[in-house]
């Protein structure tokens, strides 16, 4: 139990630390932050239950007023902004990523994590993010999709990085990937 608690807290802190990584600007001028990489990793490494717990804990601390989001943002205001869906969407994103790696039956850890991150960390996250933006800006879903489409390539890139990282983690530290330990594959 202590181990679960420490891992959940550590991944919440990892998401916060990744928020300090300066945003990389893609070729066409769209900045991407590393913070959702932490969300994908939380789901893909910890599995769905502890991954969700890490995201919940992080979002709770942001709501309590800690400046943990990229750019030192935080407080209750970020829950009223047009981007709120992209923040609250972290919870289902980590859940779907974790569920996919646990249930898909793909033996290759990196492939399972990469596909899970595309499904949870990109697809599910954007469903929530776009819905939130459509409500806040009073736009149709298609218009809101158009407004966020520029960020999708960056997030797909992060999903690839998640897959590569989990692949190496499974090789050098197999015991750290809880969902792999059970069936003994690597």
């Amino acid at each position, binding site marked *: *139990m*202590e*181990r679960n*608690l*420490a*891992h*959940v*807290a*550590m*991944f*919440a*802190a*990892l998401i*916060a*630390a*990744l928020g*300090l*990584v300066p945003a990389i600007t893609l070729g066409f001028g769209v900045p991407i932050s*590393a913070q959702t*990489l932490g969300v994908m*990793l939380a789901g893909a*490494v910890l599995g769905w239950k502890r991954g969700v717990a890490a995201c919940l*804990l*992080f979002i*709770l*601390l942001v*709501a*309590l*007023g*800690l*400046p*943990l989001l990229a750019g030192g*943002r*935080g*407080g*209750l*205001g*970020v*829950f*009223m*902004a*047009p*981007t709120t869906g992209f923040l609250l969407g972290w919870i289902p994103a980590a859940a779907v990523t974790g569920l996919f790696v646990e249930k898909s039956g793909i033996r290759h850890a990196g492939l399972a994590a990469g596909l899970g991150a595309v499904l949870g960390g990109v697809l599910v996250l954007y469903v929530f993010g776009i819905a939130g933006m459509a409500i*806040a*800006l*009073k736009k149709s879903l298609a218009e809101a999709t158009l*407004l966020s489409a520029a960020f999708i390539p960056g997030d797909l890139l992060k999903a690839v*990085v998640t897959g590569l*990282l989990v692949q*190496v*983690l499974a090789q*050098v*530290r197999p015991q*750290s990937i809880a969902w792999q330990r059970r069936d003994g594959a690597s």
Partner: protein
Amino acid sequence: MISLSSPIRTRAHRWPAGAKLAALCLASTALFAVDALWFQLAALGLALALYALPGLVFLRSGLGALRIVLPFVGLVLVWHALSGSPAEGVFLALRMATAVALANLVTMTTSLEDLTDVLRALGRPLQRLGLPMHLLETAIPLVIRFTPVLIQKAGALVEAWRARSARRPGPQLVLPLALLALDDADHVAEALRARGGPL
């Protein structure tokens, strides 16, 4: 690590946090329910007046925190100006700015301790339902302590990279950082168990 709560003491710092949060819920609901431009204008005016009351320094840091909505304010204004409904754009921009401003106002005038107390009170019924809310009392300080430690370790990794490579540090540093984090988490887990488990 510091909270976004304002160091300038205002009268609102002494009000109960639960009441401020309830008022914020009511105000936000009203913002989204009332479909009149004059109401949104008055609400933003009131919010700005509340920001101005504690003085210029408070006002300035409050307006600084509002910069997260600026791109979206610009976006809806331009969008609706082009699509021929500028009044609608002004309405949406006002509502967005006011909603964020009021929520930030609660954060700025409430200490971390007061908010954690509200959280504890809200958690009690959930605890009875069997959710392990008591673990939060250990988890929250752990995250607050882990974050600067991880940032410091990430900084050391970046420096080590810069000492050895002419290229810029990139995503390859996330792997050693994740390994350091996993090791630290295991050590802390053992230390917690040795001390009799979480609170």
